[in-house]
């Protein structure tokens, strides 16, 4: 069964540094999403991406965040200047347009020190 993969599985960074989280989506899925989950809290929507542009974003997704598909396959989330409160699990997800099922990746645990 095809699956979404994410790298790295764990990233430790210092406050103020830039991080790039990577996702390899399922090949024929065209809708992509990033979510985050702070430890012990709910899964929060960050951004949806379709046809090489952002289709919707949440209040969390401010100017520090950006997304892109640099090579037509990978899907990245960049945080320009990390803050302590960015520490969370970040999940990439793809949508199967036929069934509306979202397939989540295993996540990247980001720790900002």
């Amino acid at each position, binding site marked *: 069964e095809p699956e979404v993969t994410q790298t790295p599985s764990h990233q430790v960074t210092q406050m103020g540094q830039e991080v790039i989280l990577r996702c390899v989506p399922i090949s024929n899925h065209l809708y992509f999403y990033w979510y985050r989950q702070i430890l012990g809290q*709910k*899964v929060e*929507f960050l951004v949806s991406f379709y046809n090489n542009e952002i289709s919707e974003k*949440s209040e969390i997704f401010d100017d520090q965040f950006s997304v892109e598909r640099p090579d037509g396959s990978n899907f990245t989330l960049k945080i320009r200047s990390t803050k302590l409160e960015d520490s969370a699990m970040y999940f990439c997800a793809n949508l199967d347009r036929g069934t*509306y099922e979202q397939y989540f990746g295993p996540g990247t645990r980001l720790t900002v020190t």
Partner: protein
Amino acid sequence: SQKIEQNSEALNIQEGKTATLTCNYTNYSPAYLQWYRQDPGRGPVFLLLIRENEKEKRKERLKVTFDTTLKQSLFHITASQPADSATYLCALDMRGYQKVTFGTGTKLQVIP
């Protein structure tokens, strides 16, 4: 903004019984209401989706109901097993393939 409440943070149930989890929401009914399973340290896994014009959906031991008048969905696991122990998340997709809003989840423990 849309608010989602799942009935309890934790639910303990004896093996073999039916577990029933509740999801209530405010404001407008979503186009799609989804249920996911999440294990510790893992990403959510899609279980079932129900559309706003559907009343009930089944998949193996799982059943979801959707009542847009009560603004509520019920999620049932029949003949529960210890392997069903996990956190179950309710999620609303208001318009389809855009933003999905998750509830805080109910942690189900099935006791042997």
